[in-house]
């Protein structure tokens, strides 16, 4: 069973892809599209993490 990625793992991977965009390191539009798609997924995953954290936090507060 694959180990679930941590928030830090996702954040690091996303930063690496963004770095590629920032430094115009892509020489292939397909690779760029693929990275773009991956980055979008990672952002969505990051958002889910943050939402889950907010729910947990609110639960602690109400307890």
């Amino acid at each position, binding site marked *: 069973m694959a180990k679930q990625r941590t928030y830090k793992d996702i954040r690091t991977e996303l930063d690496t892809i963004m770095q590629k965009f920032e430094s115009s390191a892509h020489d292939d*539009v397909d690779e760029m599209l693929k990275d*773009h798609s991956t*980055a979008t997924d990672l*952002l969505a995953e*990051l958002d889910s993490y*943050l939402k889950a*954290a907010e729910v947990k936090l609110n639960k*602690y507060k109400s307890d």
Partner: protein
Amino acid sequence: MTDPVFDVSGAVAALNQTFDYAYPSMVVVGELSSFKVAKSKWLYFDIKDDQSKLKCFGTVFQLTTALEDGMIVEISAQPKLHNLYGFSLNVQSIRPVGEGSLKKAATLLQQKLEKEGLFDLARKRKLPYPPSHIALIASGESAGYADFMKIIKARWPYITIDHYEVYVQGAQSEESVTSAIRKVNELSYQPEAIVVIRGGGSADDLSAFSSEIVTRAVAASRIPTVVAIGHEIDSSLAELAADLHASTPSNAAELLVPDRLDVEQSLSSSKKFLDRVIEDELMSRRSELEDISDDLQSYIKQFIASERAYADKLHIRLSSYHPQQVLKHGYALVRSAGKLVRGRGSLESGDIIEVELESSKITAQVSNVEES
């Protein structure tokens, strides 16, 4: 009938024989005078009344208390005629009688024992409170004993009492009380305290507890002692020598053990106090924890907000990097055989190319290739 004829020694012997026959022992009460102790061993004194005086001889071993001229004493003695020194009473025992003499004897003995330090406060030991096991030296038939037991049972019935029956007045009382104190001290399983009690009585009745032998036994006890003799106004030397002096047997019981009702009330108050202290402490800790929790939540909330802001920023930046954004500005992507064409590439006139615009794709044929 003719008078018998003796030489002097024969006359002395005949008279002594007559004394032995008629008065082998006699008790004489009178005032003590010319009292002296020779070589720390021999007693010489006179016993007298208004009209007569008799010489007396004895040893210091017969003394049970301090004596002084003027005291009224009771002696038990054998009348004897000495062949050189004349008539005397050979003393077998001597004791003061009458309240004045008893008090005087007690005062003299008190001064003597005080000098020896028997009553020093520094010698007083603390008694366990409450003790779990005591030795009670008393007469079981006395009112003092009944009072003591009644109060102990009412106040603190959790105590083991070993009763030692003794004479508390009369000739045997001194030896009886002393033996009991010594016996308890020799036990292998010793009680935590020795309690000596006796109810009220005349000065003569209570005299054993001011005797030297009993006072010394109390002072020498290795086990802490409580002594209560007579009523509140009475005072004995044994009480002065004791570690704890009670005014009456009832008072001894009150001093020895607490009242269980008071203890229960005190414990209940202590419990309430402790409950309150613990409750206050818990409330204070809970408040601290809540503060820490609030700080922690605030920190996490801030972190989440910051990460969300970062993610939003990334999202905007990422959108700007999508190739589609470039097409919106009028640029086109050119592919040949499915591959992106950069520069001239390998394009030749006549090649088929695909041109991707913002909202459409065009298939075209190259008519001319020029280097720019």
